[in-house]
């Protein structure tokens, strides 16, 4: 294994946890999040020499992850999504199908999923990763104004879903 390869592996190992967390917050799916980061790291690997030479491999990697997480739907593979069996048809519509596992906050997850992906990404980058509006705008490829409005509406929607007030804004549901 040459030095480049060793450096790449060390980089991925160090950054994995952070990157996969970001991907999860955007995609809200564990498997897809891992797929996105793996794909992004493959792209980083392809350009590793020049990326490392530029001195900003972390920024490049995070951009690749965000791009992958926002665009995974276009490349998704066939998945089976069975509907509720008849004998379980009374289950709440708000209860996610695939996340009834230990340690998951279903209400929070449903709230997060109520945001469109771009808005979810804006909230995650701005508030959960504590990035500036300018940094977030660069990562999302949009204007600072868009980041401001997306995060503001995203926060409002999360609060609306998680607090007793009724949810009235359904924009972006489709």
């Amino acid at each position, binding site marked *: *294994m040459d030095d480049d*390869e060793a450096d790449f*592996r060390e980089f*991925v*190992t160090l950054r*994995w946890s952070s990157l996969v*967390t970001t991907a*999860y*917050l955007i*995609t*809200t799916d*564990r498997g*897809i*999040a*891992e797929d996105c*980061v*793996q*794909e992004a*790291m*493959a*792209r980083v*690997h392809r350009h590793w020499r020049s990326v490392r030479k530029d001195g900003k491999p972390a920024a490049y990697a995070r951009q690749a992850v965000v791009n992958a997480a926002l*665009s995974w*739907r*276009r490349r*998704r593979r*066939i*998945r*089976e*999504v*069975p*509907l*509720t*069996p*008849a004998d379980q048809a*009374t*289950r709440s*519509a*708000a209860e*996610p*199908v*695939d996340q009834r596992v230990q340690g*998951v*906050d279903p209400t*929070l997850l449903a709230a*997060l999923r*109520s945001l469109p992906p771009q808005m979810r990404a804006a909230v*995650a980058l701005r*508030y*959960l990763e504590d990035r500036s509006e300018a940094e977030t705008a660069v990562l999302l490829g949009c204007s600072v104004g868009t980041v401001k*409005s997306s*995060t*503001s*509406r995203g*926060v*409002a929607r*999360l*609060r609306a879903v*998680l607090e007793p007030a009724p949810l009235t804004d359904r924009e972006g549901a*489709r």
Partner: protein
Amino acid sequence: MESSTQELPAELVERLHRLAATQMSESRPWPGVDRAVHRMQRRRLAGMSAAALGCVLIIGMTFSGALGLSSDRSQQAPPAGPKPSASASATATAPTGPLPASGFSGPVGGSLGSDKTWLKQVRARIVEVEASVKRPLTAADVQVLWTSDRDGVRYVYAVLPGGKNKLGPGLRYFRDVVLVGPAGASADKLVYKTMGTHDLEDGNVGHAMYLRRTATALPDFVLIAASPAVTEVEVASSRKFSVDGTVTVGWRSLRREGGAVWVGRLTRAEGYLSEFRSVGGPIRNSTNAATHQPKHRAVTVAPAGSNLAAIKDAGAALSWLNPSLAEQPVLAISAPLTDTATLAATVFRTPEGLALVGFAERDVKFKETWRHLTRRGAAIAKQPIGDPDTFMAVLSTVKLPPAREDLNAGYAVLTPVGATSARIGDVTVPVRNRLALFEPSAIPDGGYVTVEALNAQGTVIASVLSLRGTEVP
């Protein structure tokens, strides 16, 4: 516009961090990243896509004149050139020389597998061809897995080292080649086909190759290379659908020839299904021959003027159930929903009288954006199908990915002839050409519902419980 100064409460930030940390706590980069890198490198290799795993080799197009597509292949003239040894069998001798790291091992299979003179000629031919395209090899690099005269055709299947490995010992490549020609042909007369570059994730991967006589024929022979760990390989010979949604697959064992190859003639039904399973190790799967998929069969019963693209989408949804040749298309219709959107349905009838139903909503306006992907779904109807004109089905599908509309199902409806509207509770939608669509927003609770079909007088002419559906992107 809302204020941009609104902040996320610290408590909520903490909960979101905890959610992500909980979900991803067991996630590790390796070996997944290695594999992703490997996949990307593989995709970039020239010609890889055309020789994808589970490929179908059209042998008839290569030398149809010499092959002679007789229905009674045993009557063809005996071959000239190298003859198989009298003792040729699945227990042929092991190949000479060191093996490339292909993961395959054991004796060469096939009727020519023990013919050392023949194997030497084959290796020399492969080395020569590879050298001509600047891929130098030695004879020792060539691992012949199977070679045989069968049904008037001479086959050679071999694997070669796949190139420089940059990622360490966990990821290895091999390439495979097929040489094919008339039975008895000398090695330099065989057509040389590079099939693809493959990886050996976990060192235990095989792959399947289906062979057919012409581009439009069904595969009639299968050759599967597998690691030594594989102890049994079977091909699907039939499928039987039940009203409870279960599918029973009939399996037939293939014969192992040599150390790494499983081969067998295929019936027409088996060639259509092109499905197999293995015991002891994974083998990559393949799909039906492209010209025989349900979507192509569905359009054969579509009336003139139908939106064939939408009907193909509905037929493609049926691929999820993988109907066999025994299931026959009996209905394929489409109806416009908007200027750009079309709803389509197709029904295949099983020998037992069950209906396999596929629906698709196709919107060309938004086809390039994820927000408006074509929605497709398929299911086995709960009610038998008699006269297709009186058949009714409803399929509920959820959108992918599961987001806020997790269980907010859309309902695609196929009504009997004569229906002008469809009704779920208080919601009524118009029927056009026997098709109607209830959007998720009309049925906010999702789940199973009874759908009624009404005629112009408002009389219910049929009703049915929505099916459990599977949406396929």
